[in-house]
C-alpha cells in the first residue's frame, strides 16, 4: 500500500497563482536557526517567501502554484534537522492577535496625544507663574482639547466597551471608575477652557489612558504568547490519521479532514486520533491516557476505541464515529461542563480591589463637593475640586499593579517550563494548599522504560535493541531506545502479534511475547518480582532473557514532592490504575495518602469534598479521566503530553521530563501574589498621600500628572521583582 501525505487542508490560496502554508517548527531557538531555515527553504525552486517567526516558532511559506508539494517543505526541514508540522491557526488565537493589534493602535494614539498635549501643557504650567498672556493660555488649552478629545474617544474604546458590558449586566468593574474619571475630567476641562480658567486636565486624562493601555497590552500579550505556544504544541502532536481513500489506498490526512463514517488504519505503535469502532483486526490497546489504567485492553471487531488510545500489537481498521457519541466521552464532557461553571465564580484580585475602590473613591469625591459647598465655596469651585479628587485617585497604579506582575511572573514561569492557560491562574495557584496528583503520565513519564537493564549483558542488550528497531510495538520501541540502537538488523521479520525474528551468524534471534521466544518459565519468576511491568522476551539459541518494561517515575518526582510538602502543601495521589501500581509509586515518593482504581466521578467527588472543607485544591493530571477534576479544582496543571481535553481545561501546562516546573510554578506564583498585594498597597498608600491634597483643593494639573506617573512607575518597577524567587527556596533549580 502506498501512503501519500495530504496537506491540502492547510494550504491557502493567495490568488495570482500563489499558495501559502504555515508550519510549526520544533527546535527553532536562535538567529542561526532562523537564517538556516530561511536560506534552506528559499533555495527550493518556486518558493517566493520563507519567513521564520522566532517568537511563535513558525515558518510562513509562499510558493508558485504548480508542481511543488507542501510535503517537500517538511522533508527539507527534516534534512536541515527540524521537525515541522502544518499548522492551522485556531480561531481563538486569531481573535487574540486582532485584539492585541487593536490595543497597540490605541496605545499608539494615546501616546501620541499624551506627548503632544504635554508639550502644550508645560508652557502653560511654567507660564502660569511667569508671564503668559491669558489669550495664549486659552489658545494652548483649545489646542490640547483638539488633540485630546478625538484621541481619548479612540484610545478609550477598550475601557468604554468593557465598562458598558459590565454596566449592562448590572456589575461594576475596574473600567467603570476609569471611564467616569476620564469623561468627567475631559468634560470639566472643556467647560473650564470655555470660561478662560487657569487649569485644564486634558493632559491628565489622556495620560491616564496611555498608562492603562500599557497594562492592558502587557496582559494581552502574555495570554497571546501562551496561546501561540499551545497552538504549536497541538500541531506538533501531529494530529493526523491514516485514512482509506480507496479499498487499498491510504492517505495521511489531518484529523480535521476526517469525517464520521470514514475508515482509518491504526498501525501498531500509533496513537488513535479519532473515536471509532474496530471493524477489522485484532490487537491490544493502551487506554491509560483515557482511564489511567496501564493494563492493555484487547481490541477486536466491535470494540470502541477513543482518541488518545495507543495501539500496541496488531493493525486495526477503525470506522470513525461522531466524537460525541462515545459514552465515556459524553460522560466526561457532562462532568466537565458543571465543573467549569463552578470555577468561573472565582473573583480575581483586581476585581475584588476595584469593587472596593469604586464606591470609596466616588463617595470621597461626592463628600468633597458637598463639604466645599457647605463651607461656603461656590458650586463651581466645589465641583472642580471633586473632579480633581477623581483624577488624582488615579486607578492608574491600580490598573498596572496586577497585569505587570502577571506579565513578569508568567515570563519567569515560561523560562522554567510552565505555560499559563488562564490569566488569573497565578493568584489561584499561589493559594493552593493541597495537591492531588494523577499517577499515570503525571508522576510517571508517559514513555516506557526498561527497568532491569542492569541485569542484562551488554552484548545481548545491544543486539536486542537492533532487532527491536524492526518492530512497531511500543514495548519493543522502549527496548530499542534504552539500548540506544541506530542500525536495524537486515532481514528481520515481524510476525504480527508475536514479535520479530532475524538470523545473525547462523543463529536465530527472537524478540517478542514470552511464548514466541520459548521463555514462559522466566515469566512466572518475574511476575513475583515486579507484577506491574510489561515483559518482552529475547532469545538467542538457548539464551533467554526477559526485559521488564514500565513507565518510570519522573526523575525528580520524589524531590519535588518533598519540596511541596516542605512548603506546607499536602500531597495526595488519585489514580485510575491498579492498587499495586499506585501503592508502589506512593511508597517511592513518600506520599501517605493515595487511592487507586478511581473513576472520573470519584475524582471530582474527592475534589468537592476537600473544597467543602475549605481546602484550596490543586489538581495535576494528564488523562481524559482527569479533565473534569482538573476543571473542578481551584487550580489545575497538566503535563504537555496530556490528552487534548485535559490540556484545554488545565490552568497551567508544564513541559519536559522533570516534575520540577510544578514546584517552580508554585514558588513564582506565591512570589507574584505577594507582589500583587504589595503593589495594591503601594497604590493605596499613594492615594492616602494624594487624596488629602486633592480634597484641600491645591492639586494643579502639574501635581496630578507628576503624582500619576510617579505611582505608575513605582508599581511597574516593583513588578520586575517577580522575575526572581529567593535562592534557598529555589531548590528545584
Amino acid at each position, binding site marked *: 500500500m502506498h501512503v501519500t501525505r495530504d496537506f491540502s487542508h492547510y494550504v491557502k490560496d493567495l490568488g495570482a497563482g500563489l499558495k501559502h502554508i504555515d508550519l510549526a517548527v520544533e527546535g527553532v531557538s*536562535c*538567529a542561526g536557526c532562523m537564517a538556516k531555515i530561511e536560506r*534552506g527553504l528559499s533555495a527550493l525552486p518556486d518558493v517566493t517567501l520563507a519567513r521564520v517567526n522566532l517568537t511563535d516558532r513558525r515558518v510562513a511559506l509562499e510558493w508558485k502554484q504548480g508542481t511543488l508539494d507542501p510535503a517537500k517543505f517538511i522533508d527539507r526541514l527534516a534534512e536541515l534537522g527540524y521537525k515541522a508540522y502544518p499548522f492551522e491557526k485556531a480561531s481563538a488565537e486569531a481573535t487574540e492577535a486582532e485584539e492585541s493589534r487593536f490595543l497597540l493602535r490605541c496605545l499608539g494614539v494615546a501616546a501620541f496625544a499624551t506627548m503632544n498635549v504635554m*508639550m502644550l501643557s508645560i508652557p502653560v504650567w511654567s507660564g502660569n507663574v511667569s508671564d503668559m498672556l491669558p489669550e495664549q493660555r486659552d489658545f494652548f488649552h483649545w489646542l490640547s482639547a483638539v488633540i485630546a478629545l478625538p484621541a481619548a474617544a479612540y484610545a478609550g474604546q477598550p475601557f468604554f466597551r468593557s465598562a458598558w458590558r459590565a454596566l449592562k449586566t448590572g456589575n461594576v468593574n475596574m473600567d467603570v471608575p476609569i471611564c467616569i474619571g476620564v469623561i468627567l475630567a475631559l468634560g470639566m476641562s472643556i467647560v473650564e477652557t470655555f470660561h478662560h480658567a487657569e487649569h485644564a486636565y486634558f493632559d491628565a486624562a489622556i495620560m491616564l489612558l496611555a498608562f492603562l493601555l500599557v497594562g492592558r497590552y502587557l496582559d494581552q500579550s502574555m495570554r497571546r504568547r501562551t496561546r501561540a505556544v499551545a497552538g504549536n504544541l497541538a500541531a506538533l502532536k501531529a494530529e493526523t490519521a491514516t485514512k482509506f481513500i480507496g479499498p487499498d489506498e491510504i492517505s495521511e490526512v489531518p484529523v480535521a479532514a476526517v469525517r464520521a463514517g470514514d475508515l482509518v488504519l491504526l498501525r501498531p505503535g500509533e496513537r488513535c486520533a479519532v473515536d471509532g469502532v474496530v471493524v477489522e483486526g485484532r490487537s491490544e490497546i493502551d487506554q491509560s491516557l483515557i482511564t489511567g489504567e496501564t493494563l492493555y485492553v484487547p481490541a477486536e471487531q466491535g470494540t470502541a476505541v477513543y482518541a488518545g488510545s495507543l495501539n500496541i500489537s496488531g493493525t486495526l481498521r477503525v470506522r470513525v464515529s461522531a466524537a460525541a457519541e462515545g459514552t465515556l466521552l459524553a460522560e466526561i464532557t457532562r462532568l466537565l461542563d458543571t465543573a467549569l461553571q463552578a470555577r468561573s465564580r472565582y473573583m480575581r484580585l483586581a476585581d475584588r480591589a476595584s469593587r472596593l475602590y469604586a464606591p470609596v473613591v466616588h463617595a470621597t469625591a461626592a463628600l468633597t463637593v458637598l463639604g466645599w459647598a457647605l463651607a461656603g465655596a461656590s458650586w463651581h469651585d466645589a465641583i472642580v475640586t471633586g473632579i480633581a479628587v477623581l483624577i488624582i485617585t488615579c486607578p492608574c497604579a491600580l490598573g498596572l499593579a496586577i497585569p505587570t506582575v502577571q506579565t513578569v511572573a508568567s515570563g519567569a514561569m515560561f523560562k522554567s517550563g510552565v505555560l499559563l492557560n488562564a490569566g488569573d491562574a497565578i493568584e489561584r495557584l499561589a493559594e493552593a494548599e493541597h495537591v492531588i496528583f494523577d499517577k499515570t503520565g503525571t508522576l510517571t513519564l508517559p514513555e516506557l522504560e526498561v527497568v532491569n537493564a542492569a541485569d542484562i549483558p551488554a552484548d545481548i542488550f545491544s543486539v536486542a535493541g537492533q532487532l527491536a528497531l524492526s518492530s512497531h510495538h511500543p514495548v519493543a520501541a522502549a527496548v530499542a531506545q534504552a539500548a540506544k540502537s541506530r542500525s536495524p538488523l537486515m532481514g528481520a521479520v515481524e510476525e504480527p502479534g508475536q514479535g520479530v525474528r532475524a538470523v545473525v551468524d547462523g543463529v536465530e534471534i527472537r524478540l517478542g511475547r514470552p511464548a514466541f521466544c520459548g521463555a514462559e518459565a522466566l515469566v512466572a519468576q518475574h511476575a513475583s518480582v515486579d507484577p506491574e511491568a510489561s515483559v518482552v522476551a529475547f532469545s538467542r539459541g538457548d539464551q533467554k532473557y526477559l526485559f521488564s518494561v514500565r513507565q518510570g517515575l519522573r526523575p525528580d518526582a520524589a524531590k519535588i514532592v518533598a519540596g511541596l510538602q516542605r512548603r506546607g502543601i499536602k500531597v495526595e495521589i488519585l489514580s485510575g490504575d491498579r492498587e499495586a501500581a499506585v501503592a508502589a509509586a506512593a511508597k517511592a515518593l513518600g506520599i501517605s495518602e493515595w487511592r487507586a482504581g478511581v473513576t472520573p466521578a470519584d475524582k471530582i467527588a474527592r475534589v468537592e469534598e476537600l473544597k467543602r472543607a475549605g481546602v484550596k485544591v490543586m489538581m495535576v493530571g494528564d488523562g481524559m479521566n482527569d479533565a473534569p477534576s482538573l476543571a473542578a479544582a481551584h487550580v489545575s496543571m497538566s503535563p504537555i503530553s496530556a490528552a487534548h481535553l485535559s490540556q484545554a481545561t488545565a490552568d497551567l501546562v508544564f513541559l519536559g521530563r522533570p516534575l520540577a516546573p510544578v514546584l517552580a510554578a508554585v514558588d513564582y506564583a506565591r512570589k507574584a501574589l505577594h507582589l500583587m498585594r504589595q503593589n495594591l498597597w503601594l497604590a493605596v498608600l499613594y492615594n492616602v498621600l494624594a487624596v488629602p491634597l486633592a480634597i484641600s483643593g491645591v492639586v494643579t494639573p502639574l501635581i496630578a500628572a507628576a503624582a500619576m506617573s510617579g505611582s505608575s512607575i513605582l508599581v511597574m518597577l516593583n513588578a520586575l521583582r517577580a522575575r526572581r524567587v529567593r535562592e534557598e527556596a529555589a531548590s528545584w533549580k
Partner: protein
Amino acid sequence: MEVMIILVPLALALGLAGLVGFLWSLKSGQYEDLEGAAWRAIADDDEPAAPAQPEAAPSRP
C-alpha cells in the same frame, strides 16, 4: 509670538508623522515577531543563495 504660527503646526505635524509611521509599522506586521526582529538586526545580510546550496546538497538523498 508670531513664531507660534509656524512652530505649533510644525510640532503637531511631526507628532502626527510619528503616529502615522507607528500605525504603518503595526499594519505591516513589524510587531508580530519581536524576538526575531532583534536578531535580524545583527544577522549578516542575505548572502546570495550560492553558499547555502553546496552545504545542503550532500544531505539530499
